[in-house]
Structures are given as structure tokens and as C-alpha cells.
């Protein structure tokens, strides 16, 4: 019974994906670090309620593109972004956009788990507090619990919410960071190699979490592990030398990609 309803949910999600609107649209996106051009006119759309994986060899521009999606590149000196990126039709590089609010809508999880050196509770409550998302303590308790529940961490930490977040294991810390990202109710979650510092069990838990989060969020993940891209994503985009080589359904990408460079890269061949 349970399995049937789960597969029904899965089906509904796939349906939702196939006629999904584009949550974010990147048009002719180029990025320059000083004189050096890192991205060349990338046109890539991110579908709603879909996990989109960005793959490609080191230095191909996938992380650069990811960071464009919530203007993290603004923090890098000499970095210049051209082209247009929209979030629900709002131009995120428009002068009127509040970058702090943008980053609440487009959250981010990094390669290394980076919890604040504070308690587990405070790690989660920080974002909602500065964004004024809770009215009182009870409200905040609820946000903290819900976020930890969604991140699949509640059962493991509910009795030590006031212990330091840095005392958790690596995998738990990463899920804490995901809970922290969720706490401000983002629409899109960006993940930059979220499992590269984790062991296989912790990786599996994060991947399971990504799978579940897809129902409520739009996810873009950069990964060096091709198997991970194949496991968690519905769409895959392959970058090479700053260019988007191919974007396709993940199933197609890993059985019969259109582009020779994709083929060579995912099969571990010399290009």
C-alpha cells in the first residue's frame, strides 16, 4: 500500500517536472574573473521541483555558474557577470534586487559542512531571526523542529539542541547545514559538492534527503561524482571549458548522451 502511494507521488512529481515551468532561466550568461573569461554565453534553465546536476571536469565553470544563481560571485573581487538570470521572471542582477532577500529565496549548501560555532538550535534559528520569519519563541521552536525534520536530523539531535553544531559528525553537520538552508523557506537550494567530504553512508543519507526535498524545492547540485549525478538528478548539464556542452534528461545522459565530450567525460576516457 505504502509503496503504491509512494510511487504515485513519484509519478506525480515526474508529471509536474515534465510540464514544469522554468524556475530559473539563465540567458547568455558569461562570467569574467578580471581578464579571464570563465563562462561563455551559457543558456541553461532550471526546472521547478527538479534536481539539476551540473557536471564537468575541474575548472569547467560549473561552480561558477552555480554561484551566479544567488549572486555569490558578487563577493569575489574582479568578478563580472553578463547576460541575464531570472528567478520567477525577476531579473536577479537588477539593481532593485535585495541580495540578502535573494539569498533567502535561493539558499546554498557548501562542499565542507560549515555550521556556525553555535548550538544546533541557533544554527537553524539564525536565518529566520534575521529575516523576521518568527513572531515568538514557540514559533521559532516550530521552525527549528520542522527544518530538522525535513533534513532528516530531528531524531538524531532532538535531545541535544543546545549542544554545539560543530560537535556533530561530518554527515550530520552537512544535514544541519541543509536544515539551516531550509529554515528560511527558500524556493531554490544550490549545493556545491555537498557530499565530497562525507563517507558513503552519510552521502547516502544526504542523497536520500535531496530526493525528498525535490517535492518542495528546486535543487541545483554541482558534483564531481558522476554516479551521484546519475543517482539524484532528473536533469544533467555538462560543462567543459566554460561552455555548456549538453543538457539532457539524466536517464538519457548516462545511457546515450548526444555529445561526444559528455560521452568521453562520463565514461572516463581521454577526450
Amino acid at each position, binding site marked *: 500500500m505504502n509503496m503504491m502511494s509512494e510511487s504515485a507521488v513519484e509519478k506525480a512529481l515526474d508529471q509536474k517536472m515534465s510540464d514544469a515551468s522554468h524556475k530559473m532561466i539563465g540567458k547568455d550568461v558569461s562570467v569574467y574573473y578580471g581578464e579571464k573569461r570563465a563562462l561563455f554565453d551559457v543558456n541553461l534553465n532550471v526546472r521547478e521541483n527538479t534536481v539539476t546536476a551540473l557536471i564537468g571536469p575541474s575548472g569547467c565553470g560549473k561552480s561558477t555558474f552555480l554561484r551566479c544563481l544567488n549572486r555569490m560571485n558578487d563577493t569575489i573581487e574582479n568578478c563580472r557577470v553578463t547576460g541575464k538570470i531570472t528567478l520567477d521572471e525577476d531579473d536577479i542582477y537588477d539593481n532593485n534586487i535585495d541580495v540578502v532577500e535573494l539569498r533567502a529565496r535561493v539558499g546554498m549548501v557548501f562542499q565542507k559542512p560549515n555550521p556556525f560555532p553555535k548550538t544546533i538550535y541557533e544554527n537553524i534559528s539564525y536565518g529566520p531571526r534575521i529575516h523576521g520569519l518568527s513572531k515568538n519563541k514557540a514559533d521559532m521552536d516550530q521552525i527549528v523542529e520542522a527544518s530538522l525534520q525535513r533534513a532528516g536530523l530531528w531524531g538524531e539531535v532532538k535531545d541535544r539542541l543546545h549542544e554545539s553544531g560543530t560537535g556533530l559528525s561530518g554527515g550530520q553537520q552537512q544535514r544541519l547545514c541543509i536544515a539551516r538552508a531550509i529554515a528560511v523557506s527558500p524556493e531554490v537550494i544550490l549545493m556545491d559538492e555537498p557530499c565530497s567530504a562525507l563517507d558513503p553512508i552519510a552521502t547516502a543519507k544526504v542523497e536520500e534527503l535531496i530526493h525528498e526535498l525535490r517535492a518542495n524545492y528546486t535543487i541545483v547540485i554541482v558534483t564531481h561524482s558522476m*554516479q551521484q549525478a*546519475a543517482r539524484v538528478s532528473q536533469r544533467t548539464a555538462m560543462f567543459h571549458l566554460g561552455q555548456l556542452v549538453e543538457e539532457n534528461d539524466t536517464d538519457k545522459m548516462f545511457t*546515450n548522451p548526444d555529445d561526444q565530450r559528455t*560521452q568521453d567525460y562520463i*565514461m*572516463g*576516457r*581521454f577526450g
Partner: protein
Amino acid sequence: MASTHILSAYDDELKYLSRRISEMGGLAEQMCSDAVRALVNSDAALAQKVISDDVILDHAEREIGDKAIVTIARRQPVAADLREIVGSLRIASDLERVGDLGKNTAKRVIAVQGTGVPRKLARGLEHLSDLALVQLKDVLDVYATRSAEKAEAIRSRDEEIDAMYTSLFRELLTYMMEDPRNITTCTHLLFCAKNIERIGDHATNIAETIYYMTTGAQPEGDRPKDDSSNTLGAITE
């Protein structure tokens, strides 16, 4: 297969699979041609050799299966590599079946030995087996070159074998009707003809697998068929 993997051991594993498939193909081809020769010449010794060769073929199929599983587990192949390995498994099982059909034909040599095979039927069987073996040989050559185009061409040739089989079927029926003493021999020969016709089908399967391995797509359209033996002899007046 122009470029190679960064991990050379991976290349070696894939090469091992394709080498073993080619070997299996060569043996299966030899077995089938020997089986038909043993049949038309009533050569029991040759038939016995075919029967014992089947063990080698079975063994090769299992080894290919084991190696493919280990390669999948160790390398997590994707795209063309994955299709290559899955294709190897399919082709190995087709070739193993071809060997079984050769063996079954060889076993019947002993049963028809006493009466011998009428000249005309022997020629018919030889012709049928020539067609099937050419099909098998060609498909193994295509396996070596991985040409999707040629694989598709072979697939469309199965029709000829089917037509030949139907005509042989009709002939065997006639013999049986002429003299009931022919029934035992003719029934065995009918099974032999069916075996040979099935070899053509397996060759066609292999052609389809090669097409898939190379292109990632299934060949389009139904495979052409001209086997009307399944309705032959039905009263149509």
C-alpha cells in the same frame, strides 16, 4: 572505440569480453556447420564432437557473465561502456543458444543414422544451413567492426532463411504423406530444420544488439519475417 579509458585496466576488461565473444562466435559457427555435415553424411563421430564442444561454449558464456558482473561492480560503466557490457551478456547468451541448437541437431544424427537422409532433403538442409551460417558469420564480422549500418542490413536478411525453412517444411510433409515409414526420419529432420532456422533468428538478435550497442537506440520497425510454416497444412478450402 577510438579513445581509451584513463584506467587502462578498464580497457583490458572490455577487450577481454569482446575477445571471448568472438571466440564463442567462432566455436558456435563451427559446431553448427559440423552438425549439419554430420547429419547429411551420417557421421556419428563428428556428431559426438559437436555434442562435447557444447560444454566449452556453456563454460565460456558463464565466464563472460562473471566477468561482466565484476566489471559492472568495479567500474560502474555508463553510456557506450554500459551498452557494450550489457550487449556482451546478450550476445553471449544468444551464442550459447546457437551452440545448443547445433548440439540438438547433432544428437539427431544418431536417430536418423539407420535410414539415412534422402539426397534431395539433404541438399535442402544444407542450403538452409548455408544461409543461416552466412548470417551468423556476417553478424560476427559486424561485431568486430561495430557497424550499425551493416547490423541493420543483416537484420533484414532473415526473411530469406524463413522462406527456405517454409519450403523445406512443405517438402518434409510431402515425404511423410507419401510413405508413413518416412515419418520418424522426417520428424527428426523437421526439428533439425527448425534448429537451423532458429540459428538465423539468434544471428538477427545479435545484429539488433550490435545496433543498440553502437547507437543506443533500438532498430526501428518489425523484423521482416517470411515464416508461414505455422499455418501450413491448415485446411483452407
